Each structure stands twice: as structure tokens, then as C-alpha cells.
């Protein structure tokens, strides 16, 4: 990437924030309608302890859900790759779970699963596991047929073919799915918190957003929203870095083509 391209989004963002602040001051917009960036920063600083504590709570749900989604997605994808019967049995239900809005099933889950944290993790996992499942399944199915033949010729067992060929082939697909699942887990966690808050649960960033809304503390609401957006970006970037590290370590490696035959 050229230098100018790297700085472009930052310059654009700063310019947009300055314009926002300028308009809020110039047009005398009331802070309970639209606070300026400065007011949001001030509100964040004033309420930092509570906001960060809520972030930790949201992140705990997100992290647990991402882990569960990764394990569940991979296990189901492996089952689907191992047997056509399993594929036929699992695939439609995975799609049903995927297309049903989690907001609609979350109240049920919260009634069924008594432990609040576990209930929210279940909700977020339902949102997050599908990209892991579909990507890993696609990766397991995309094994080059010649390599599969080679394994057969050398008498490879099913387990050897899975461990030495199909899983490593699927790794880039799995990691791409995991990156999408990371941001979805955050979305799922916040949705679950919103639903749980109607039952008295007050933790998490969703709780802060609702609370600020009831009290018309709009700058604080924006502060929580901003924190949520930054967290999403952070998760996406962290999983991207994890993906690159894994692929450098276990993937195809460098592309410095050498001379010679």
C-alpha cells in the first residue's frame, strides 16, 4: 500500500469529525439531539470505569461464543465431510438456525438456559458459528483430487487423510470464517444483552446504551456505541493478524520465486 493510501482513512475520519464538531457548534445543535465528538469524549472519560467494566462483560460473552462457534463449526464441518448422511442431516438445520433472527429466539433461550452468561453465549454462538461451518466445509471439500489419489495410492488411512491433507487444506478457509465469526459473535453478544436486559440483566455495553437512552444521556450513549464499534474493529484486526500468523507458520509460506529448474 502506498503511504497516501494508508493515511487516507485516518485523514478522512479526522476531517469528518472536525466537520461534525463544527456543525454542532455552528448550528447550536442540542447535545441530547446530537452531541459533538468532544462531548462524547468527555462523557466517555467521566464514565470510563463503568463503560470499561461493561466492555469486559461483553467481551467475555463474545470470546466464549467465538470459541464455541469455532469448535462447533469445525466439528459439524468435519462430520459433514466424513459422511454424506451427516451432511444431509446437518445442512438444512444449520441454514434454519442461520436465517432465523437471533432476536426472535433469544427470549426462548434465556428462558431455557437459566444461567445468564451461558444463555447469552448460546445466543451469540448461534449467530457466529455459521461462517465457520460453511467455510470449513467448503475447505474440506476443496482438497485437490490428485492429492487425495496420492494418499490412496500410499495406503493412507481415513485419519491420516484428514489430519495430513484435508484439515491443513481447509485451514485458510477456516481462518477466513473465524474472522467473520469474530465480529458476528460481538453482534450476537450485544443482541443477547439487549434481550436479557428486559429480564433485569444490566451488564454489558448494551445495558449501558439502554440505560443512557432512558436517562437521555445521549453523549454517554454515543460513547458506548463508539466503544462498541472500536471493539468490533479491534476483533476483526486481531483475528486478521492471527490468520496471517497461522498461515505464515502452517500455510503455503513465502512467494519469493527463485530462478532455476
Amino acid at each position, binding site marked *: 500500500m502506498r503511504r497516501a493510501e494508508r493515511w487516507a482513512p485516518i485523514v478522512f475520519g479526522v476531517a469528518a469529525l472536525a466537520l461534525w464538531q463544527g456543525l454542532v457548534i455552528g448550528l447550536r445543535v442540542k447535545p441530547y439531539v446530537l452531541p459533538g465528538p468532544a462531548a462524547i469524549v468527555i462523557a466517555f472519560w467521566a464514565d470510563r470505569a463503568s463503560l470499561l467494566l461493561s466492555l469486559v462483560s461483553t467481551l467475555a460473552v463474545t470470546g466464549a461464543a467465538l470459541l464455541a462457534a469455532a469448535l462447533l463449526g469445525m466439528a459439524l464441518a468435519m462430520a459433514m465431510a466424513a459422511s454424506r448422511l451427516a451432511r444431509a442431516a446437518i445442512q438444512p438445520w444449520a441454514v434454519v438456525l442461520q436465517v432465523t433472527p437471533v432476536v426472535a429466539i433469544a427470549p426462548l433461550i434465556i428462558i431455557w438456559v437459566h444461567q445468564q452468561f451461558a444463555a447469552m453465549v448460546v445466543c451469540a454462538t448461534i449467530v457466529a458459528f455459521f461462517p465457520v461451518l460453511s467455510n470449513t466445509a467448503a475447505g474440506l471439500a476443496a482438497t485437490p483430487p490428485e492429492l487425495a489419489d496420492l494418499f490412496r495410492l500410499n*495406503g*493412507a488411512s481415513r485419519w491420516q487423510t484428514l489430519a495430513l491433507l484435508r484439515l491443513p487444506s481447509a485451514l485458510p478457509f477456516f481462518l477466513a470464517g473465524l474472522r467473520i465469526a469474530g465480529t458476528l459473535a460481538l453482534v450476537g453478544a450485544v443482541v443477547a444483552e439487549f434481550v436479557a436486559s428486559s429480564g433485569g440483566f444490566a451488564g454489558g455495553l448494551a445495558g449501558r446504551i439502554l440505560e443512557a437512552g432512558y436517562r437521555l444521556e445521549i453523549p454517554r450513549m454515543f460513547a458506548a456505541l463508539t466503544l462498541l464499534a472500536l471493539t468490533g474493529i479491534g476483533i476483526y484486526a486481531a483475528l486478521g493478524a492471527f490468520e496471517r500468523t497461522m498461515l505464515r507458520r502452517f500455510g503455503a509460506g513465502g512467494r519469493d520465486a527463485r530462478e532455476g*529448474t
Partner: protein
Amino acid sequence: MVRLEQVTRQFGTGIVALAGIDAEIGRGEFVALLGPSGCGKSTLLRLLAGLDAPDAGRLAWDGGAAPGAGEIGFVFQDATLLPWASAARNVHLPLRLAGQHFEEDAASVHALLARLGLAGFEDAKPAALSGGMRMRVAIARALVSRPRLLLMDEPFAALDEFTRNRLQDDLLALWRETGSTIVFVTHSIYEAAYLATRIVVMTPRPGRIAAEIASPLAEGGDRRTDPAYAALVREVTETLRAVMPA
């Protein structure tokens, strides 16, 4: 080594890939299967490898039993290496599938890579190697288990001419050195004439053996400029013209 008796293979779509093939492959031979696309050469190779089974006819192997795991080396048109594994680990793969540990075989794997001109590239991953080097790794992988039979499916078709010529020379040298049996599928008349002790010409739809031409080329010497090589190319070309449907 193996005799094919009235081997027939047809696919579900009604295409007869092979129709009543009778052929014999002797120990130590270098047989080229020559023909245009769709003549069933690759199908025949897969039958020999045991990756596919004939619908009629049979393959009679010396000693009765078909080759087991690791007794057949196969080289595909693409190198088809594991992209995440080093050259040495790729070569070792057939032994690993047989339950051996890399550390025990490292010396022989390195020696084999060196024999194929890849000393110093043991730890390189496929993406860091040129097309010709990747094909050398694939050949080393096919040889590492000391197979009874080496099957090659247009292995040099995707390489440039200079690389192809060098690999052909190296393959001939390896074949003379090891005395192995090779069945080599190609659609290049020049390649078949240059490499093989016997050229089996096949015609398409249904795949049949149209002619067999024994190579008169002497061992050693520069084959490429040998007048006998030019004469053989001419003979094969004329045979193909005579047997090919218009």
C-alpha cells in the same frame, strides 16, 4: 510386470474410454502412451495404479497380486505438492503414510533431493520453487518408496521447453540408474520418441491401441541430434496420421 487382457472401461455418460485393450508391460521398460486428448491414456494409467477398476477384462500382475501401498509411484501433470510442507517433507510423504518418522529418513530424503538437483532446497516450500523444481520434488516423492512401477501422467506438459528438455534428460538418467519400470503418458510425439523404449499409439473414442513402435535408439550418445531420433519421430508421425480418424 503386468499384462492387460481385453481391458474395457466406460463411464456413466456412455463414453467408452477404453475398448478391449491388450497390452503388456515388461520389467525395466520405459513405455510411452501416446495419443490425443480423450484417447483414454490417463484412464489406462489410473487402472494400472489401481485408482480405478475396469468394467471388463483384467490386469494380470506378475506374482498374482496387484501392487500394494507404496509400490506404485505416480507423477501427475501438476506437481500437486502439499503447499504448507517443505520440499523434504513433501518427498517424505509416502513414507510418513507408511508410518515412518521424518527424522529416521531425513538422510535418504536429502540424498534423493540432491540426486534430483535440489540440494539446498530441502526446507523450501513449494511456493518458493519454480515449476521445474516443483516437478523434481514430485518425481522424488514418487521414487522415495522405491516403487515397482512409476506412472507419469503428462508430467512435463506444463513446463517450458528448456526446463522440459532438462527434466527429460534427468529422468532418462534416473531410469537407467535405477532400472525401474516407467509408463509415461504424453501427447508429444517428440517426447515419446526421445524417452521411451516402446511407444504405444492410442486412438480416441473408443480408446484403442492402434500401433506399437519399438525404439531403435541406442543407449547413451546425444539422442536429440541422432538421425535415428529424427527417423523415429517421422515414423511415429506417419503412424499417427495413418491410424487417426479424420
